[in-house]
């Protein structure tokens, strides 16, 4: 179980990177939209959601990979 928790750290890092790529591409399209609501929504996703999900998941994955969550069992 300990090893599984550690290996899953790689998955969280990859998920973070994929979500970052996907959301940045999508929000850049929205920022270029004619509709005001879409533009604001695009900026909110780019400036708020992306840093939290990408930064958070990568850091979480790194901690998991380092075995930081072992003691929680």
């Amino acid at each position, binding site marked *: 179980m300990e090893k599984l928790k550690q290996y899953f750290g790689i998955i969280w890092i990859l998920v973070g990177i994929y979500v970052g790529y996907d959301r940045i591409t999508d929000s850049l399209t929205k920022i270029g939209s004619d509709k005001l609501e879409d533009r604001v929504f695009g900026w909110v996703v780019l400036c708020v959601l992306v840093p939290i999900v990408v930064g*958070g*998941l990568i850091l*979480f994955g790194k901690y*998991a990979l380092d075995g930081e969550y072992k003691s929680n069992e």
Partner: protein
Amino acid sequence: MSAKRTKEKPKPAVNNRTLFSVISASSVGTLIEWYDFYIFGSLAAILSSQFFPKDNPTAALLSTLATFAAGFIVRPFGALVFGRLGDLVGRKYTFLVTLVLMGGSTFAIGLIPGYATIGFWAPLLVLLLRLIQGLALGGEYGGAATYVAEYAPKGRRGYYTSFIQTTATLGLFVSLGVILLTRESLGVDKFAEWGWRVPFLLSILLVGVSIVIRLRMAESPLFSKLKTEGNLSKNPLAESFGKKQNLKMVLLALFGATAGQGVIWYTGQFYALSFIQKACNVEFVQSNMIVAIALLAATPFFIVFGGWSDRIGRKPIMLAGMALGILTYRPIYDKLYSLADLSQKQEFVDAQTIDRKSTKQDNGGLLTTMTTTHFYEGGLIAKDIEKTVTASPGAQPSKPELSKSVTLPTASFWLMVLLIFVQVVYVTMVYGPVAAFLVELFPTRIRYTSMSLPYHIGNGIFGGLTPFIATALVATATKANEVAPGSVAKPYLEGLWYPILVAGVCFVIGLLYLNNKSESMNE
């Protein structure tokens, strides 16, 4: 998180009367804060016409910012600002400040003259006050949950904090109730003219009562003990997020619990309402009734699951709520859709009626409304409404504005209530135990700061974005079907992928990394 069954009922550190007062004072105040926060959303259409005219681009920008900023961006900042304050000076005074800020800004919104009177200042002031509301809400919840948990006996924290968990749902009820009552007693015209201010102004009375109640309360015993011993944190922000030992728990709380809890919460309550109104076209009053009944019927389950989590642990209940959402959202929403899907119903074409009405508008124009009523088997009624405006006699009428509304027969109405009730029960499973889960995850000296941030990121950002992201996914699928018909089988269900994926990731992280053991709260 207690996984052990105890034979004797745990005894509280204070007597039951004090504990009851603590829960009442905290819950009433938090309920009022939710009320204040929701009336802005419930009156969005009227506020928009008063403060944010759509033909003015600056006002439209401020309106959009008010929608996004207060709900998503400012709440986590409020969590940081007031969380820090709560760990430095105490829970009681901090959540008194948030209450005053929330009540004051809500009252002030009720006093601002409209755009027609003071122009650009009106939307700017409303935006500023809305931001203060968001900040206050960000600080309130963590304080109330921490305060109650620090009074509650070990082994009963899930039960006692679950009363705080009911306040978000009840706050929505009170706001809708006050708005409907004011509208009914003043009439629709007077309400649109000035009556909408009443629910805002009323807030000052509610907050006043709550402040008096809260002022009588003492500081939480665990915080007082730390203060007496001189063990308070000097820099709660640095201790919470600058030290790996605590930051890793903040990340675990976010990705293993609150993000999934947030999307389940918003899907089961707000997206469900939006779905039956926009995708199913269920008539406005009927759709609100459906959700209101489901919410009322499911509210006691917050306390049931909160109390149950004291016996079997927080983790299994929260994860079960997420798993049920992941597995059943698509069939539930498919059924909701089919109940109002006219293509599957037989119409009595001969019974169709057409009603045409023309009314003169204040600006001299003529509004023509044509309503075609269709009758279907089983008692379902659908109305196609077409509105056109003619600016002056002889002028070309405007482009018709089309809308549709469906009135469900009794059996379908109650089936829809049941389907939404089931979703709200999922909400109670993930949300009922979460306050106790969060307070037990962090030490007393930095608890307010540490628990508030993952809660407000999970709920404000992951949860709050649910209706917007889901709507965008449905729009993308609908557009794909227009280009290549049949490429997406059921485009109206595509929006559910967002809560399903977020809850799915959260479920796996929770299952792997959360423990279900009892945590000490005395450090």
